[in-house]
């Protein structure tokens, strides 16, 4: 209960701040955010896009981990957790694709341009879609969990190759992430804090959704078991 309220308040605060804090060329006050050349005000999308992209990948990895656990232990709850992780990951993947397209529109004028990052998130979307299509095509519970886990493994194993081939195929239009390599942080402290807070907030939200969904699915599963012959 407390967790839910805390996450709600936190995210609300983050959203308000990320949309309202002034962006100035030379940040002086503690609440000033630096201007990202070329993006200016529209850089605020960063606070929303990156967390959703991050969570869509985490969702897939979690689904994979629980899938492997299900293969070994055959505990139906592991399969429920695997499916739930995939569901939430899928939701955030859709959000990431949309916010990514918005960012692309702001930065380069087109909604979609097949650069490595946009294509990667699209491929992840396809994998999620395939995962759920497979699940819905199998009626026997035990087989469903098994085959879905196996597919997650095969898809997961080929995903890294995608990262390797993309740079060779297209020149990237994706701007250098402004928070990656050592020392090259072009964010100021305020922006960084806000960004990390957004990341934490969305992760909290996703975790809450995940836990709620798992509890519901476990209860449904047990109830079905008792009422079935």
């Amino acid at each position, binding site marked *: 209960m407390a967790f839910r309220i805390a996450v709600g308040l936190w995210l609300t605060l983050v959203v308000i701040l990320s949309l309202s804090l002034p962006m100035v060329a030379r940040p002086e006050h503690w609440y000033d955010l630096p201007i990202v050349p070329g993006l200016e005000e529209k850089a605020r999308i960063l606070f929303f896009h990156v967390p959703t992209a991050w969570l869509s990948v985490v969702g897939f990895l979690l689904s994979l981990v629980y899938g492997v656990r299900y293969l070994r232990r055959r505990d139906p709850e592991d399969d429920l957790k695997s499916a739930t992780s995939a569901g939430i990951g899928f939701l955030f993947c859709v959000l990431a694709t949309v916010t990514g397209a918005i960012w692309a529109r702001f930065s380069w004028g087109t909604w979609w341009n097949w650069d490595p990052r946009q294509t990667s998130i699209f491929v992840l979307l396809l994998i999620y879609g395939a995962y759920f299509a497979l699940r819905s095509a199998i009626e*026997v*519970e035990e087989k469903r969990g098994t085959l879905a886990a196996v597919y997650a493994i095969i898809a997961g194993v080929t995903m890294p190759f995608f990262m390797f081939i993309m740079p060779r195929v297209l020149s990237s239009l994706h701007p250098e992430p402004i928070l990656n390599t050592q020392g090259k942080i072009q964010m100021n402290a305020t922006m960084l804090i806000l960004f990390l807070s957004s990341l934490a907030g969305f992760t909290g939200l996703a975790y809450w959704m995940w836990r709620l969904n798992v509890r519901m699915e476990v209860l449904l599963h047990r109830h*079905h*078991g008792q009422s*079935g*012959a």
Partner: protein
Amino acid sequence: MSSPLHIAGAGLCKVFNRRQVFSDVQFQVSQSERLLITGRNGSGKSTLVRILCGLLTPSAGSVVIRWGHEVQEVERPGVIGLVAPYLQMFEEFSAIENLQLAASLRGYPFERGRAEHLLGRVGLDIKRKDAVRSYSSGMKQRVKYAFALLHRPPILVLDEPMANLDADGVAMVREVMEEQHQERILVVATNDLSDCPRADAQVNLDGRT
């Protein structure tokens, strides 16, 4: 004196889609013994047979086969022969070709002479080259017997042994059963108790859910 050939099932239970088929089934069969599995239609006889042959994983419990040493999963094909309504032959091939597959898929060399002899013994025409697909159900059943016996299985499992067979076929099966019983293990699953009048061990699946 413990026999080197032995099959034991302990605590076997199977659940399909949340419905329990049977629970806590056990049996012990040694060399020169027969196991009879009985029960009404739908009581899970075929499910138990499949678990015994390693074709289905039980929800709980285990089946252990010993032949001197404990038989591993990879060795199971060499130890078990199965005749069942749900075991399909490779119908696009002829009878002799099916026997060839029965040997080569197991990784064994194919003894053509023995295969032809076996086909004759189960009452099939060894000269017949057309695909099993064109055979009558009685003849398909005979092919299944040849298929199961080719590698002289220490454990012969028969699910509905007399299905589709005429009087000659039934006589052939009784001979096979008697021979198997001499030195090896015979498992029979059936509704009809006259199929296997004497049994050393019995599992009745009625009322086990």
